[in-house]
């Protein structure tokens, strides 16, 4: 989403689902996996004003389909075809929200003449490297350096015309031939969802891993952004693109940069290259529009910022976020004379990838000695689990922090290594020939510790401790605080410069006298930022400085703390139930980043004049320009610069995190490395040849194990993995709770009655599923809810597997991920769990 809007987060929030006219649930099983989201959709349904219609598009008929108004099946991995057809339908029938699109997106921007697209390849493709040169994917600029536009949308190189041409190939019949959706159902989906292009309606899209876990995952999301921008559904109540996170606090984890390519606050992490060699180079790199500007130090840079950098957006302030972060981490050791200790920051190898698959591939090659596994269970949850489990045998040591001894903690005890169902490709181990030393630290459960979780809608909510931890288990904060303190002790007295980052790291979270637990509010204080001079909270990121006078552990959390009557307030602890707007914003319940905005891009909830609601939509206005007061105001915190009024040219630029100020239908300059517009490619393993173009696989997806690609002659059946309501993630929690284990006691696969008949498989009996990566057993759930897909003259079958089982706990079963491939999205490397090939037979 960030190439389109500037941020990657869920745009609206859970309660906001009640405000929608139409919800398109695609690649998500909201009723089972986000039941609280479903609760709010139900509210919308019962509200006579909204009468929410729910559409479910999914390869499987799930409990979500059962409660939807319309279910439309779709073959796994064909989302772009499905959505491309929708884009085509909107454009062909002029259903787009004209005022909105013209003013708030880059639809009128003129694209370079060199940009082109042919046979599934965008201009600039280098086949030998499987990469693109993005040079031609840019805007045309006039003599003054302004992007050229054509508001009439007639210019043949404007985004509108290019978009129309690109998606003209996605006619309904072609789409249905690819997706296998029944044409009548598909037309109904188009009709109902595209009706939200009317200015008085909004439609929301909810998605989850069914969208992202593909070799085209990012482009799937990009296709959503185009649909939602054309229909004018962004930044408005009941609209948006709602990325439902796989678990609570995944949002928090990414906010805190538990990813390899960013540092806290979604800033690109520094690399070992020349353009990152010192602080000023780094700032030049991360500030949009700064590349060629004349400055050599922070002072000169500040002068330039003061005058304004065209097309830089809010990220023009990146230097303040970075310097404040360095101050938070290194305190007094970070100062103007030493580049604020920028040299302490680890620099990642720019030529390497450190995502999940890459990490385990490196581990498998023996390049990694030690591993911390905390709250994750890769032996169950990782792709190609046979390989990942084997990779663990190559480690010297592993620290596992969890509530139970999970399959990962006890990987060395795996009973299946010498079991009957085995694949010749899988190596056999025994505990006696595994050298990995495993340390297990029992962790406290969520109710046994205090802290915040940032839920899917960016709401950060504090949770108080409900019970004491069991036995010796400890809160994660305690564990990491001890680790930090002991590391510092170990390095104490060293005068080697490379030890300085640890020695000088600020680490003062000492709890109250007599308490063993560190003080979590001290962590919050550092995270949300403070003035160095007097230690008072920084009230918002506009106050952050790059001169060393402020410290802030994560700029997007700035404003989460305040002083009231001299008392320190941590806003995630707020629990007020007032909702003056009636739109479910609850501004004083918890706190949402950024600066308590509940719906991001909310400037779009009013017309370009900043005041008038969209026709017929008076009660869904979130913010507005108050001419008298000379500032923006409203029910929500405006996602806009407060003082920018009608006389400022940026007044109609609602996407402040984008350099253009507009949302990007066309993703210019390689913000997505696999193309400025989405194009349908088949999954890595697909049973059918490409229809729309000559490419089968996404041309830039990285292929790790070419020899492990299953072909449809041996493995003709499509498979996908998923979760059910009764188990959570890898099941390490829920399979250990008898009340949940009894509700979903065994590993199962779902298949159609037709396929069962063909293979002689009986409901409730064991089957064997095999791929080039491994074989597993499971119990067959033969159901009317699965149907074969008719693709032109071909009929293909799809099965579904729960990935939540393992060899520990009350409910045990084979691990579905022993079957899934090591291949991921071209941009994010998110593994393609959702579409791969297998074969099945009776056990």
């Amino acid at each position, binding site marked *: 989403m960030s190439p389109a809007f500037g941020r990657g987060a869920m745009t609206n929030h859970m309660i906001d689902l009640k405000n929608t006219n139409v919800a398109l649930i695609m690649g998500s099983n909201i*009723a089972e996996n986000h*039941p609280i989201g479903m*609760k709010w959709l139900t509210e919308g349904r019962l509200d006579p004003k909204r009468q929410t219609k729910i559409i479910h598009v999914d390869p499987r008929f799930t*409990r979500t389909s*059962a409660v939807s*108004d319309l*279910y439309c099946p779709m073959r796994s991995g064909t989302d772009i075809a499905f959505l491309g057809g929708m884009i085509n339908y909107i454009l062909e029938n002029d259903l787009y929200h004209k005022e909105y699109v013209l003013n708030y997106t880059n639809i009128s921007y003129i694209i370079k003449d060199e940009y082109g697209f042919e046979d599934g390849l965008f201009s600039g493709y280098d086949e030998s490297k499987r990469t693109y040169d993005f040079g031609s994917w840019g805007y045309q600029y006039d003599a003054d350096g302004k992007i050229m536009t054509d508001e009439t949308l007639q210019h043949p190189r404007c985004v509108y015309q290019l978009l129309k041409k690109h998606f003209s190939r996605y006619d309904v019949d072609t789409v249905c031939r690819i997706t296998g959706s029944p044409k009548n159902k598909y037309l109904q989906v188009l009709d109902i969802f595209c009706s939200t292009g009317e200015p008085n309606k909004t439609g929301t899209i909810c998605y989850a891993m069914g969208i992202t876990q593909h070799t085209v995952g990012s482009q799937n999301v990009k296709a959503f952004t185009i649909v939602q921008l054309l229909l004018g559904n962004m930044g408005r109540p009941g609209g948006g693109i709602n990325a439902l996170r796989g678990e609570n606090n995944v949002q928090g984890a990414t906010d805190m940069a538990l990813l390899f390519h960013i540092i806290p606050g979604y800033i690109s992490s520094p690399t070992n290259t020349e353009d990152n060699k010192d602080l000023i180079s780094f700032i030049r790199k991360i500030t949009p529009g700064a590349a060629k500007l004349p400055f050599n130090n922070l002072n000169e840079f500040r002068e330039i910022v003061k005058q304004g950098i065209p097309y830089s957006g809010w990220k023009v302030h990146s230097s303040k976020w970075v310097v404040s972060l360095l101050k938070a981490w290194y305190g007094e050791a970070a100062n103007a004379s030493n580049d604020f200790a920028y040299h302490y920051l680890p620099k990642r190898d720019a030529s390497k990838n450190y995502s999940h698959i890459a990490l385990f591939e490196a581990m498998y090659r023996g390049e990694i000695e030690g591993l911390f596994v905390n709250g994750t269970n890769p032996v169950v949850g990782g792709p190609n689990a046979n390989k990942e489990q084997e990779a663990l045998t190559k480690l010297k040591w592993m620290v596992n922090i969890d509530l139970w001894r999970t399959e990962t903690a006890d990987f060395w005890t795996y009973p299946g290594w010498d079991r009957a169902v085995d694949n010749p490709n899988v190596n056999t181990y025994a505990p006696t020939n595994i050298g990995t030393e495993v340390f297990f630290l029992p962790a406290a459960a969520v109710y046994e510790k205090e802290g915040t979780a940032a839920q899917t809608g960016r709401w950060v909510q504090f949770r108080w401790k409900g019970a004491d931890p069991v036995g010796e288990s400890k809160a994660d904060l305690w564990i990491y605080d001890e680790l930090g303190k002991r590391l510092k002790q170990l390095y104490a007295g060293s005068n080697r410069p490379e030890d300085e980052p640890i020695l000088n790291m600020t680490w003062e979270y000492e709890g109250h006298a007599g308490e063993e637990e560190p003080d979590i509010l001290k962590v919050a204080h550092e995270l949300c930022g403070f003035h160095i001079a007097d230690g008072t909270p920084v009230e918002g990121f506009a106050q952050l400085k790059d001169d060393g006078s402020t410290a802030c552990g994560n700029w997007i959390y700035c404003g989460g703390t305040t002083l009231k009557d001299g008392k320190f307030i941590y806003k995630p602890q707020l629990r007020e139930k007032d909702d003056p707007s009636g739109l479910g914003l609850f501004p004083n319940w918890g706190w949402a980043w950024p600066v308590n905005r509940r719906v991001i891009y909310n400037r779009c909830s009013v017309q370009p004049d900043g005041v008038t609601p969209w026709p017929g939509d008076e009660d869904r206005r979130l913010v507005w320009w108050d001419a008298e007061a000379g500032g923006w105001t409203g029910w929500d915190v405006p996602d806009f610069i407060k003082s920018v009024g009608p006389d400022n040219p940026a007044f109609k630029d609602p996407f402040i995190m984008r350099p253009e100020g507009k949302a990007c239908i066309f993703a210019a300059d390689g913000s997505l490395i696999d193309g400025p517009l989405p194009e349908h490619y088949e999954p890595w393993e697909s049973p059918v040849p490409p229809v729309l173009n000559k490419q089968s696989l996404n041309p830039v997806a990285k292929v790790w194990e070419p020899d492990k690609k299953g072909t449809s002659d041996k493995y003709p059946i499509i498979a996908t993995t998923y979760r059910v309501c009764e188990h959570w993630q890898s099941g390490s929690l829920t399979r250990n709770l008898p*009340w949940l284990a*009894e509700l979903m006691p065994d590993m199962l696969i779902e298949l159609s009655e037709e396929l069962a008949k063909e293979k002689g498989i009986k409901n409730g009996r064991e089957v064997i599923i095999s791929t080039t990566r491994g074989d597993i057993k499971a119990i067959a759930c033969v159901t*009317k809810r699965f149907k074969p897909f008719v693709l032109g003259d071909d009929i293909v079958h799809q099965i579904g597997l729960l990935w939540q089982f393992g060899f520990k706990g009350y409910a045990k079963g084979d691990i579905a991920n022993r079957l899934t491939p090591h291949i991921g999205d071209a941009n994010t490397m998110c593994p393609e769990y959702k579409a791969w090939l297998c074969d099945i037979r009776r056990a």
Partner: protein
Amino acid sequence: MAYLTNLYDSSRCTACRGCQVACKNWNQLPAVIEPFRGNYQTHEDTNADTFTIVKMIETEDPVDGVIWNFLKYQCMHCFDPACLKVCPRDAYTKTSWGATVHDPDKCIGCQYCTYACPFEIPKYRKREDITTKCTLCADRVEEGLQPACAATCAPGALMFGNRNELLQYAEDRVKHLRANGFPRATIYGKMELGGLNKLYVLTDTPDKFGLPVDPKVPGQIPFWKDWVQPYIGWLIPLALAGSATSFVTTRILANKHGKHDEGGHE
């Protein structure tokens, strides 16, 4: 006193089974782990340690395509409970607000109630030699709380309150559903068996949810209790030795799952 009841709206239920877990939690019932038999429902019926289940029924028709119906199933707290009528030890009582409550201390495990109940609800728990069933959370309701199942239901499919008010909701809801794609939507529990203190809004006819369309108390039952009541004090041993036992044993033998003595994993 006005009756307080649980209403279940099948059009809002997502079959999350949170209610089933909440019930186990409140009543501290052990898990009954049965192997997966090819249906998400996992437990085919309620059992001595599972007072409520959510039925999941798949059907398909040429017009509507695949339909997956959900139904929360438990004791119906009948206005005129057959279980209460037949119990030789008066283990059953009706609270002033409509719950049919069973007293395990009085229960002798004869299972006559199981046979009498039109829904076969009371289940035998071998380890204590008693029958058990949903209590409508009388222990919570009398302390001003909602039943545990209703309190946990996220999409609001379960609602607890005054029966007359809930009946009004049900009438309105059914009207709305009938006009919006569910022409056969109906209320269950309003009239059945003279009224149940448990209301259902169904999106289709009761048989599509595994409910008896016209539930009946097995023929001999009212007769037996009315006859035996005056002599209850001295007749119990005799009755148990005679007719009742034979009913029960026949019932056990004929029981379609043959699982009466499966009081969970003990």
